[in-house]
């Protein structure tokens, strides 16, 4: 595949995923789209995405085919195979020749070969420093993925991870409530900080808010952190106003 068409395919895949993430969506649907795109772009015959459940087991949540044999291979890979290795190490695991993998994962090896798969590539799905699952791609040909393909696979797996977080936020109502509540409380803190600035400077309330935002941006801090610092006086008004005037 030429670089130009690879790039076009990849950007089309990202656009598709970005569109999905902004609307109401189903995570399984998203992951299906993703693994299909990934298998096509990387010229592999089959793929699947495994996610960690709360009890610590990996489950196949999306695959290029719902065929029982593929599901079985995926589960074997997640039990004692490249998938669980990628998951537990947090690193890409490439097996260019499954037949030559010897006694490392015998059950997985036999089942994969029986269905004609010669090579496999497992990419960890990472989110905020945690590994939440892994994406597997199978090919009927022997050979390692080249370094460029490895990067593409990781990029797509990372997008999938973001999609999962998005879905979890949608599903776990209490987390939405917490995030909402956190935002509301941040707003209170900002009002308190505005009061401190309003009392200490000739600024209007509006200008006080502007200076909090400017300081936050200039110092790569969250608005909440800055507001909190102003109220507990760990960020002095002089320091904050100086930043505001410097703009």
């Amino acid at each position, binding site marked *: 595949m030429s670089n130009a068409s690879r790039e076009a395919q990849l950007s089309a895949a990202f656009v598709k995923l970005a569109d999905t993430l902004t609307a109401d969506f189903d995570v399984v649907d998203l992951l299906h789209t993703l693994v299909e795109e990934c298998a096509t772009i990387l010229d592999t015959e089959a793929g699947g995405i495994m996610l960690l459940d709360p009890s610590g087991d990996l489950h196949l949540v999306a695959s290029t085919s719902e065929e029982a044999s593929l599901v079985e291979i995926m589960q074997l890979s997640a039990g004692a195979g490249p998938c669980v290795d990628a998951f537990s190490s947090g690193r890409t695991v490439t097996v260019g020749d499954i037949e030559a993998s010897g006694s490392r994962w015998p059950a997985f090896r036999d089942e994969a070969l029986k269905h004609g798969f010669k090579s496999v590539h497992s990419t960890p799905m990472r989110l905020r420093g945690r590994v939440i699952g892994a994406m597997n791609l199978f090919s009927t040909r022997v050979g390692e993925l080249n370094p460029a393909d490895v990067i593409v696979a990781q990029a797509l797996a990372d997008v999938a991870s973001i999609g999962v977080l998005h879905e979890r936020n949608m599903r776990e109502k209490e987390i939405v409530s*917490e995030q909402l509540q956190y935002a509301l409380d941040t707003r209170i803190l900002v009002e308190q900080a505005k009061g401190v600035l309003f009392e200490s400077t000739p600024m209007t309330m509006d200008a006080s808010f502007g200076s909090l935002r400017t300081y936050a941006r200039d110092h790569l801090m969250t608005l909440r952190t800055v507001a909190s610092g102003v*109220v507990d006086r760990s960020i002095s008004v002089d320091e904050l106003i100086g930043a505001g005037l410097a703009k």
Partner: protein
Amino acid sequence: MPARIGQFAGRPVDGSAFDMLVPFLTALPITGAFISVSDASGSQSSLCSSDPVAARLDELQFELREGPQWEATRTGAIVLIDDVVESSHERWPVFGMALRELDVAALFAIPLVLGAVTVGAVGLYRSIPGSLTDRELSTATAAASAIASVAVRHALASAGEHGAPESSAAPAMRREIHQATGMIVVQLQTTATIAHSRLLAHAFGSARSVHEVAHDVVSRRLNFETLPE
């Protein structure tokens, strides 16, 4: 005028102070709960409790002036006693002794926080020992944050505040309470918690609503620095 309650995850409804306990009782593996808030003098007052044991936990700490409820209110930090029997109770020795008489195996205090202000605490107890998970603590913290301003309104209502209830106030007016708090922080060179408490005390003492007093502060008609003690 009935007090208004903002439910944990939903729309505002009319209700009693007890409604504030519902999110804790339904979402957490606890036996009972109670809420106390700091009044204007920095002392605590009880708002509600779910059962006689919860009421006794609240009352004991109020009488003894020590315990996790006081500590959470004073520091703004969560206090966790996962096992009442195993705990040393160093910071509340008398209350620790009194606890032995009650069917309480674990006790937690979650501060009620409004931005930088701590207005009180929610006490949660279990009749079997055991900690709350991080997830449960996040839920408890969010629920406490959700009811903090409602708890203040209940406290004011029970102390006899007159004037417009919060619910009828425009959002801008509600913000003025927090802005006024920030201004009083500067005027009195104090903490946000004390500034807020002084604001409430002044409103109560002058028989006006907190909104009116906050509005006077924000429009610079009232300055706590020049206020007679």
